[in-house]
């Protein structure tokens, strides 16, 4: 399991606050609020499950089931832990149940189960494509990565620094304001402008990947 998937190592410690607010709204019946959490965590959850299960279709099914279970149990989320930590446990339990169910069908089970060495905590994200990853999608992901890095490098220093401190170092707005010696509002504005500039570069690629979807 790579570092990024481990619960509790979320560099966006502040994002837990918006998660709690979104959970609150979802519990009150706002399904869109829950969908925002899904959009946010879907990739991480699928990566996590992908370390336990080989079949990518099955990964998606388990991820679906994970979010459905999470939605049903959302009222039990007390906010003591990060939302992702809670979701992580549901995903692992759901994947285990699926695998247990599949044990009745050894042929499917063997093909679905990842090699045991990949379950190791130190295992890094696999470099080879999974079963349904096409060369095009691998290339697109690579292009998006390069576009993000290129866009970041092209940013004015203050925007670049604000976004880096936020996303890579996980600093809060207050801490960034202290580091950059500027008001909170300026921090918010700089981070936003930096994100807009970078995402403007990748939005066409995202649209090409999945179409107009949100």
């Amino acid at each position: 399991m790579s570092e990024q998937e481990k619960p509790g190592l979320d560099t966006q410690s502040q994002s837990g606050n918006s998660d709690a607010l979104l959970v609150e709204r979802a519990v009150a019946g706002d399904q869109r609020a829950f969908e925002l959490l899904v959009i946010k965590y879907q990739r991480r959850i699928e990566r996590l499950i992908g370390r336990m299960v080989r079949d990518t279709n099955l990964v998606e099914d388990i991820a679906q089931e994970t979010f459905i279970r999470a939605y049903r149990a959302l009222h039990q989320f007390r906010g003591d832990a990060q939302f992702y930590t809670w979701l992580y446990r549901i995903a692992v339990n759901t994947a285990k149940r699926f695998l247990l169910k599949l044990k009745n069908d050894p042929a499917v089970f063997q093909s679905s189960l990842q090699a045991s060495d990949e379950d190791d905590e130190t295992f890094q994200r696999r470099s080879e494509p999974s079963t349904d990853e096409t060369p095009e999608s691998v290339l697109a992901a690579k292009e998006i990565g390069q576009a993000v890095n290129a866009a970041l490098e092209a940013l004015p220093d203050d925007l670049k620094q604000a976004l880096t401190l936020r996303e890579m170092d996980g600093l809060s707005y207050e801490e960034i304001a202290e580091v950059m010696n500027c008001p909170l509002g300026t921090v918010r504005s700089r981070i936003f402008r930096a994100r807009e500039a970078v995402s403007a570069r990748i939005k066409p690629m995202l649209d090409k990947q999945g179409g107009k979807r949100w």
Partner: protein
Amino acid sequence: MTDTSMANTELVSALVDGQVRGDEFAQAMALLERSGEARQSWHAYHVVGETLRTGQADVSAHEADFVLRLRASLRQETMPLHLQAAPDSLNLKTVVPSAQDPQGKPRISANDHRWRLVVGLASVAMVGVIAWQGFQGSASPQAQLASAPAAQAASSSPLAVGSAPVMLRDPQLDALLAAHRQFGGTSALQMPAGFLRNATFEEGAR
């Protein structure tokens, strides 16, 4: 992008960082509710953040389908969340509408709760009855034994003659009891029973 649109999208960015509260949070949610562009920004901002943190973009082509599929499943979940069961007790794939629900209406989960209520009440009633019977069983023999002398004294049995009651005896029964004295100490129940008199042969006592 207009100034208003910029300000709106800045709200989404701040929401990504958990930096909006109160009215601003409500505004951001309303924006995300009505604007596909805002939701695209929400998605793109998270992809940017993940790419910067991991050094690798991880976007799959089925993300939109995933959310649409999930949305369809969640629409089946019409019951208020606070009334629903914990996930550990659930079977896999339970949200798929069953064949008994051809119109695609959500399954009537409220019925489950009614049945649960009925079963719960029945269980409580059963426990109450059993407890009452146990209480009766343990309390009545002593009560009957305690009241026996008074009842005896007050009785005007035809066996009692004058102030000193004399029991009429059958000589054959006496002989039988004398022959089987070893079996006469206890009743067949092996415990005190208010409704049985022990038939013993105690010659000396009479």
